[in-house]
């Protein structure tokens, strides 16, 4: 009788705390589960009673990785509630800010957290010894993305320049022009990093499972900042109908909510965006998608990692286009004028891990009376569970350690962002 019992407590190289449970006996899977064990965050309650000016700043604290996306989604919801129309310049700059965040997050995930799997190393540290040039290039791509955030948003994390109707401060023409030139110069570095990782992508399991993919979509661009809700199963839906898309529900073994739409589960994130919007990628990003062997609809969740590299490339190229458009205008900080009024607004935006919704109701003084947020990682939990169920039977002949590694890699491929906690050191003197 053979028995496999795997319990990965607090999976590493993901955000926050989640466990993987697997029990199998004589080749039969008895239990496989992705458990999220974080405490609820209560952010929707935090903003009730807050003035609309404060809401995006509070909500950006939901995440230290996607803080720009949360702030932008929050601003979009507030602006929708109050009927605020932002200028073209504001929209272009916001799109650059969102690209900066996607670049930051994607290169962190693929470069520091997934690359060790591709090179069969436990972390990025042994990778420095064997592939120092690659690590330096990854660090330089990460640094550029951070500096982009600093420039547009006032700091790397938790933006301070973004506000309802526009920006408190915008960069100078010289600063934007310098950023544009740096983005152009970094494309060859992206090529080198992509090539290096592509050479090892064959180490990712060849696993596919059909599912529904959901994300923003648009006829005119690779939808990140704006669009309608798209589903590979059911077509397009209005953003205002987001609750009937996510259909959130609770399960007894997880503190996070789960979601489902046309099937038992759906996937959001880079792979979903690619499956919905690949035709609108920039030319260089399309070329990399082709080299990675990607074409929609791709149902291998491990390829989410490859799409993140494609999206980094897209964000660089599209940021150059956006900056050209901004630099072509008479650069001035155009803040929208508006009247505070009661109302409800829904914002939707693509953050690195998928589609994000914020929904607020305000009273006539501009105080928030109700809030609802649906976060990408929650929308993926059930899909991760079903992937694990389908993946495990293909692994049972492997050593237990190898099974565990494969399961960890699968969850990590989703780049789940579970939550934050405290971080203090524990050391001993040597």
């Amino acid at each position, binding site marked *: 009788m053979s028995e496999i019992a795997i319990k990965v407590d607090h999976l*590493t*190289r*993901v*955000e*926050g705390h989640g466990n993987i449970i697997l029990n199998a006996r004589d080749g039969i899977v008895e239990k496989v589960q992705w458990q999220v064990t974080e405490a609820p965050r209560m952010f929707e309650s935090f903003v009730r009673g807050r003035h609309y000016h404060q809401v995006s700043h509070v909500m950006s604290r939901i995440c*230290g*990785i996607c803080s720009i996306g949360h702030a932008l989604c929050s601003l979009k919801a507030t602006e929708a509630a109050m009927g605020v129309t932002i200028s073209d310049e504001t929209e272009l700059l916001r799109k650059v800010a969102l690209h900066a965040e996607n670049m930051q997050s994607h290169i*962190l*995930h693929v470069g*520091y*957290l997934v690359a060790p799997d591709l090179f069969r190393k*436990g*972390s*990025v*540290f042994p990778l*420095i*010894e064997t592939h*120092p040039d690659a*690590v*330096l290039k990854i*660090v330089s791509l*990460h*640094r550029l993305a*951070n*500096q982009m955030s600093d420039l547009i948003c006032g700091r*790397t*994390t938790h933006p301070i320049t973004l506000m309802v109707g526009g920006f408190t401060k915008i960069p100078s023409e010289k600063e934007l022009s310098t950023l544009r030139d740096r983005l152009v110069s970094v494309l060859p570095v992206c090529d080198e990093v992509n090539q290096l990782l592509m050479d090892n992508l064959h180490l990712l399991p060849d696993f596919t499972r059909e599912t529904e993919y959901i994300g923003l979509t648009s006829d005119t661009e690779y939808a990140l900042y704006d669009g309608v809700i798209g589903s590979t199963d059911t077509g397009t839906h209005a953003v205002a109908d987001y609750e009937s898309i996510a259909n959130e529900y609770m399960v007894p073994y997880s503190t996070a909510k789960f979601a489902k739409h046309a099937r038992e589960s759906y996937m959001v994130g880079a792979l979903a965006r690619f499956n919905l919007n690949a035709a609108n990628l920039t030319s260089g990003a399309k070329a990399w998608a082709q080299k990675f062997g990607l074409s929609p609809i791709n149902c291998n969740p491990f390829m989410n990692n490859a799409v993140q590299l494609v999206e980094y490339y897209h964000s660089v190229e599209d940021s150059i286009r956006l900056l050209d458009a901004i630099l072509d205008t008479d650069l001035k900080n155009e803040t929208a004028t508006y009247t505070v009024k009661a109302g409800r607004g829904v914002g939707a935006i693509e953050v690195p891990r998928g589609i994000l919704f914020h929904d607020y109701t305000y009273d006539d003084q501009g105080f928030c009376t109700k809030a609802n947020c649906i976060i990408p990682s929650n929308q993926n939990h059930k899909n991760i569970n079903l992937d694990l169920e389908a993946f495990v039977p293909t692994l049972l002949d492997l050593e237990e350690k190898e099974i565990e590694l494969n399961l960890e890699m699968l969850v990590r491929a989703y780049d789940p962002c579970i939550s*934050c*906690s*405290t*971080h*203090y*050191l*524990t*050391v*001993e*003197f*040597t």
Partner: protein
Amino acid sequence: MNQKRDELPQPPAIAVIALGNELMGDDGAGPAVLKALQRESLPPGVDVIDGGTGGMALLHVIKDYAHVIFIDCVDFGGIPGEVRVFLPEEVRSLRGIEYSLHQLDLMEVITLSQRIGEAPEIMQIIAVQPEKIEPATTVSERVSAAIPLVVEEILREISKITQ
């Protein structure tokens, strides 16, 4: 809070980087020191930086400095409120090197910085032993009493470097 480096006369480029989460009791020791430090007059060439809860972003911050002094809440097995000054090579993290984007600890950032050849010439850690790490917006009495001692240590170290 941060003075602009390019407005300063001659570096030595020194950064005092305070780390910690002020919503988690004694983990807020770093931010508490930061507030106390703002009441002090520092010599030119010193940047005081709120490093938040650390993470990979620190890698890009520290590379620009010749000398970095980290202020952090560290469990080194001491008495709550005890202050220790040490160099990275004098300790090893008991967490081991396995990280997420949020949970990268200070020792890992320092190690990565050293291994890619970007580390400041000198890095020191001024550490406060915590009593309680739990949701709270104030530090414990013993850690609070240590804050002036940490500030004294920082000023002493800065004085040594700039003399």
